[in-house]
Each structure stands twice: as C-alpha cells, then as structure tokens.
C-alpha cells in the first residue's frame, strides 16, 4: 500500500512537469473531422443559382420535425434555382435539430449539407430558428446573386443530370 501511494505521488508530480494538453478554446480551435455534422449550409451552383428546389424532402425526412420549407414558382425573369420551384421560406429550428444528417441524405440536389460550425448558442428561443438568409452560402466568385434573369428554356431541369459519381 505504501509503495502504491509513492508510485501515485511520483506519477502526479511527473505529470505536473509535462505540457498541458489544454486547448485555449475561443482563441484556439481544433479543426473538425471531415464527416462532422455541424450547422447546415444551403449550397449554390457555380453560377450563383440555389441548389434548393423547395421539394420539402428534407422536411419529410427530418425525424425531429425541425425543418420548414415553403416553395414558390420560378420564372425566367426571377429565377432562384433551376427548374420550376424554389424555396421561398427555408427555416431550421436548431433547438429541435438532432444533427442526424437525414436531410442531407434526402436532398435530391445536394442543396443542404451539414457544415462544420458547432458554435450555436442562443439567448432566446426565437434565435434558434435559422432562416434561409442565415443558412445559404455566399454567392461564389463568378456567380450572380439570386434572383437572376435567365434565358428561356435553359434551366428546365430541377435535379441535375446524374453523371458517374465522383465521390
């Protein structure tokens, strides 16, 4: 028993002189894993059009019923996304969301992706509802912001044509 006590004391004393493993969080952040499921991001195509077509499959797949989608009609003068419809309202309640990623799987256009932001904190329940403006990613370089004026008969397909999957 006495020997055990001294072994323990030696261990604690030795660990006192090792480098602390603490990560000073707000200043220093650990990168997340590649498959990390954080806050959702609504993606755009390279030309700036939104990938989301307002189909509500994500809302149907959501086990926590956290997603609310309302669709509206696209026109060539006011086009948000390819195809007939786009999401005029897209809201996720982050307090209900369980970050399962089913919405990601259900999405036919890969519009919703769980990103790597995990710093979700609210001072009010209303703040937990993220709307489309908060979720959508910025327009990529070379793209135009939505709504766009597009030539007729080009963006008729809502879901992009399937090629050999690269990843």
């Amino acid at each position: 028993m006495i020997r055990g006590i001294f072994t323990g004391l030696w261990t604690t004393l030795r660990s006192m002189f090792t480098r602390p493993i603490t990560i000073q969080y707000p200043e220093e952040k650990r990168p997340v894993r590649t498959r990390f499921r954080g806050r959702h991001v609504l993606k755009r195509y390279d030309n700036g059009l939104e990938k989301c077509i307002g189909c509500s499959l994500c809302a149907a797949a959501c086990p926590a019923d956290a997603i609310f989608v309302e669709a509206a009609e696209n026109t060539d003068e006011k086009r948000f996304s390819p195809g007939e419809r786009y999401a005029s309202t897209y809201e996720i309640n982050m307090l209900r969301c369980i970050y399962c990623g089913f919405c990601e799987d259900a999405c036919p256009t890969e519009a919703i992706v769980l990103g790597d932001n995990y710093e979700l904190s609210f001072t009010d329940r209303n703040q937990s509802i993220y709307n489309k403006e908060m979720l959508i990613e910025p327009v990529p370089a070379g793209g135009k912001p939505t709504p766009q004026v597009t030539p007729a008969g080009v963006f008729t397909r809502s879901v992009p044509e399937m090629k050999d999957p690269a990843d």
Partner: protein
Amino acid sequence: MDFGTILEWIIKALIIVLSLTAGFAYTTLYERKVLARMQVRVGPNRAGPGGLLQPIADAVKLIFKEELIPADADKLVFIVAPVITVIPALVITAVVPWGGTVNLFGRQVVLQLTDVPVGVLWILSVTSISVYGITLAGWSSNNKYAMLGGLRSTAQMISYELALGLAYVGPILIAGSMSMRDIVEAQQKLPFFILQPVAFLVYLIATLAEINRAPFDMPEAEQELTAGYHTEYSSMKFALFFMAEYIKMVAVSMIGATLFFGGYLGPDLSFIPVIGPAINPWMGPVWLFLKTLIWMFLIIWLRATLPRIRYDRLMALGWKVMFPVALASVIVTATVVLLVGG
C-alpha cells in the same frame, strides 16, 4: 499597558485576520492551479493575468448568489453554524510566531500576536471547537445528506484528535515547553521532522483528517453525500464554510511548518548586501511563508493523488494504526528525553 501596546496588538491581529482571509482566497487559486497542472491542464487563466483575479471573481459571484434557508431548517442554528466554523479557524494562528524581534519606530516589536505559554494547547482546543459548527450545520439543515456529513465529521475528528494531540507531544517533550516560540527556538540546530519523523507523519495524516481534506474528505464526499454538511448552504454562508476549510488548511500548514520545519528560522542572509543585518529579522515571515507554501503543496499533492478512503477504513486507520503509533512515538521520545536529558 500603554496605548502603544494596545495599538500594536490591534495591528498584529488585523494583519493575521486580513492575511488569512486574503490567504484563503489565494489558497483556492493555488490549489486549483496545482491540481490543474497535475492533471495536465492549465487551470484558471481567464480572470486577470494568469488567473490572478479569479478568487475575486469567485467572491463577487458568491456574494450575489441567492441566500436560501430550507423551510424546515432550525433557522438560528443554521445561521450561526458557519460563523462557529470560521471564527476558530481565524484565531488558531494567533499563537504562531512569524519572526523574531524587530525594531519598528523605536519599539521592539515581537513578530507574533501573543506568546501563550500553553500555545499548543490553545491550538488543540480551538481546532476542536470548529467541529461543532460542522455538526450543527449538518443537523440544522434538516437534510439527511447534511446530517450524515455532520455525523461523519464528528466521528472522524474525534478519532483523529487523539493522534493529533499525541503528535504535538513529541516536539513539546524535546523543546521542554508548550510555547510555540520556544518550540521554534529549540529547532535552531535540527528541525523536528528529523528528530520526530513519526510524529511528523502522524501530524500530517491526522491534520488531513482534521481539516476534511482528501483522502479523508468523508464529511463532504460528493458522490455519496452530495456536498455533505453544507448541502443546503448557499451564497456567503457557503463561502464561510469554504473559507473555514481553506483557512484551516493554511493554519495547519503554518503550525506544521512551525512544529516540524523550524517555523520562521532560516539561513542567515545578512551577508547579502541587499538584505544586510537591518532587514534580516524581517526574513522570518518570508521563511514561514515559504515553508507554509511547501506544506500546502504537500496537502494539494496528496489530494491530486489519493482516492477517498472508505469510512470504516478511515476509522480503523485512526484507532488501530495512528493512535498506537503516536502513543509509541511519545513513549520512545519521553524515554530518550529522560535518559539523554532534553
């Protein structure tokens, strides 16, 4: 007794009380820092440079917390209990000398509040009082966890008090006096932890039990008793218990340093030009402070290492090991002192 003497006493008493309360605050930080480093963490470092303002932040937080008194609590006892716990902790160190005699404004000032001829007895009796506070707190809370914590504390302190008392006897026998100053002066040649290793160990273990520190923190065993005797306490009343615990830790370290490490005695530094013979008497408090820090480090180190002892083992250790060992140490010391002659 002239006015100057009274003023001197008041100032010295104020210094003791203030340095103990400030010491309490920074002991918490010291403990948290050392524990963190032993667990390969960095510890509090947000409030102020290196976390130096953390105790102040804690104090402000505790002051603003809601003060709760349980509906069925015995109100008077509930309020008085933390006071009974903290006052003895504050007055224990009155008899501990912090240095020799210094010349201050033409007065010969002894660096000690009062040199009671029975200083060691004073320490023993005052430490015993604070157990009442803990027991009363446990009983008045009207909570089974608090009650169990209070009862455990009583049993534990009574068991370890005997060994603790006997641990004091060794240094007393060698010094031939109960005055703390005489005991320090008797260590000019050899500190007593060399002459009295058994008493030193018994003192170390018994005081850990006496101040409810790990591995003997039975009265507040979080896993079994939530927080033990202070389960129902909040805000400043809780802070008072906390304060008592840490001040007792400081006091026990100071007394231990005085009894076994030679207290304020240290190497003569008057040859160093900066210090010189004028400043040298003032080094007493510095040596005592350093020795206290080392002793407290020992206590924290033990807390970081050892798990809590089971309650029956604790009692068995107290009665079947500590007490006989302390008794044997006293008998051997007494015989040797009688034969060799002090």
